[in-house]
């Protein structure tokens, strides 16, 4: 167990993972009920990555997120009710309903936004790191992205720039083995995305993305290194999405994945694993865990209620917020 992690923090990590899981289940439910407009890309199964990584950050550190962003936002402190309201297109949402699931941001929490463009966040993350350096702020940016995104030109340009300028940014790859339906082996001829670090002369590490403490440990090292001026690191987290590519993906992605593979990964549920660890180490009792889950369920339900009961934006808001 990492010494920097006290009991409070450990519990918080579990709580965040539970929040993500239950939040996503509600989103899925709202989609099925026809209450959520559009689609959403759920984070179930990958909770350890967002929570492990964000636990290594201070409040004013930055993150950039992706189309699969709910987990990152919750892990960085995003308020469930404003998120849920946004996802339902409500005036009370983080972006007044203008953004939706793929475009939630909270600059006060250093959340520079989810992104609908695969690879859209890389350069923004590097830009934030440049600000931090030139403004002498000591802030570190964590840039989240998937395996599929590592084939975008913007990955290459951005990591190269960050490395040659030695900027304080940590690239956290969620290798969930697929970009929509295309398996990693069919979109790149490498198994470990971490090897791509060598192309930029930066460290590349591989970590079990189903183990929140392992993710925390590696990202923490990278964040410390970045903060001390050591430049970027590429951290590859091996993980898996339990659901489909988005809420509308038939059979949770059974068209391109086998049931065996899905079951195998579900066995490695990061939440169950963390619970086992906390029980084993005597940090929490089963009863405490159950209570925590109850509380989370309640919080998420409150967020849903808030969102459902919130009004839609007014027509005159259409042209607001375009120019500063």
């Amino acid at each position, binding site marked *: 167990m990492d010494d920097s992690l006290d009991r409070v923090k450990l519990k918080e990590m579990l709580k965040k993972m539970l929040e993500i899981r239950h939040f996503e289940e509600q989103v899925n439910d709202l989609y099925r009920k026809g209450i959520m407009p559009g689609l959403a890309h759920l984070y179930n199964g990958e909770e350890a990555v967002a929570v492990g990584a964000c636990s290594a950050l201070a409040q004013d550190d930055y993150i950039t997120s992706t189309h699969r962003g709910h987990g990152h936002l919750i892990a960085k402190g995003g308020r469930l009710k404003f998120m849920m309201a946004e996802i339902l*297109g409500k005036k009370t949402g983080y972006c007044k309903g203008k953004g939706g699931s793929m475009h939630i941001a909270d600059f006060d929490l250093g959340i520079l936004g989810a992104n609908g463009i695969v690879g859209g966040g890389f350069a923004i993350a590097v830009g934030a790191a440049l600000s931090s350096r030139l403004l002498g702020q000591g802030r570190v940016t964590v840039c989240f992205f998937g395996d599929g995104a590592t084939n975008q030109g913007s990955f290459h340009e951005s990591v190269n720039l960050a490395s040659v300028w030695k900027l304080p940014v940590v690239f956290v790859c969620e290798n969930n083995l697929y970009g929509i339906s*295309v398996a990693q082996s069919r979109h790149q001829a490498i198994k470990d995305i971490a090897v791509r670090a060598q192309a930029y002369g930066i460290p590349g590490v591989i970590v079990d993305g189903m183990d929140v403490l392992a993710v925390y440990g590696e990202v923490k090292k990278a964040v410390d290194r970045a903060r001390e001026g050591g430049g970027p690191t590429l951290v590859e987290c091996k993980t898996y999405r339990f659901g489909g590519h988005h809420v509308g993906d038939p059979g949770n992605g059974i068209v391109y994945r086998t049931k065996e593979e899905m079951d195998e990964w579900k066995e490695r549920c990061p939440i169950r694993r963390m619970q086992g660890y906390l029980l084993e180490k005597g940090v929490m009792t089963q009863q405490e865990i159950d209570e925590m889950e109850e509380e989370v369920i309640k919080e998420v339900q409150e967020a849903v209620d808030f969102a459902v009961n919130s009004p839609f934006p007014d027509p005159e808001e259409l042209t607001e917020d375009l120019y500063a």
Partner: protein
Amino acid sequence: MREISYVEAIREALRQEMERDERVIVMGEDVGRYGGIFKVTSGLWEQFGDERVRDTPISEAAITGVAVGAAATGLRPVAELMFMDFVTIAMDQLVNQGAKMRYMFGGKAKVPMVLRTNMGAGRSSAAQHSQSLQAWVAHVPGLKVVMPSDPYDAKGLLISAIRDDNPVVYLEHKFLYPVKSHVPEEIYTVPIGRAEVKRAGRDVTIVATSMMVRKALKVAEILSKEGIEIEVVDPRTLSPLDKETIARSVMKTGRAIVSDEGCTSYGVGAEIAAVIMEEAFDYLDAPVRRVCAPDVPIPFSPALEKMVTISEAELIAAVREIV
């Protein structure tokens, strides 16, 4: 008469051309076994296999550039960008390479490729999955740009595009995919560069693109009951634009509305309005009205998004203003 949907018509064109010509291949993200996220290429992978129906990495610039290179060397690739919003990533390959290669090389190259993608808002997909950027590509010499508005044209224009020896941007509309109409089973072409009068009328011309053609036809139906006869002209091709057919209609009606789903300013409506003024100024009884999208990004919330997708009511209001 057989009726099939727009998405089926596109798929049929792809299948028939692939059967006819081995050099025709399909490539793009998730176009293989998954059949494309709008199911356009569904079934092609099963029929033609991995080599001719190619799933690509998420690399829009490479997808487009590889299509350019492949087209210049003997294939006739049909590349798909999942959403038109992603053409932003591929503009160098499309515009600096594909569109200019033949000209720069003094006619030595030909680039028979098709870039298929879709435009149109209304699905609560927000600002990066809803754009209608046709004005950009239509501004580029060396490209051809087509926008079919119904299943018949969808099939015929795609076959023409595949057989064309130039890079053709083929723009589908998300809300047209399920729309059905008569489509012959046999192979036929709809010529690129030829507009069509989709409905004749004497009072007002509506020049409409893609989904707006459907809406204009409905509006024509409605207003016909009041005795207002609208002529609906579908350019079908933005570049090269069939100015004659458009001008001829306006010379008859003396009034014109242009309706396209791109943003109004510097959009398709501006070009068509300018052309009408140039070609039919003396016939115009009123300024050409643009009924295009407001100049804002596409908002997520349905409450706001419905204000940027042009309604029949807006078209009706515009007609009433100028008749």
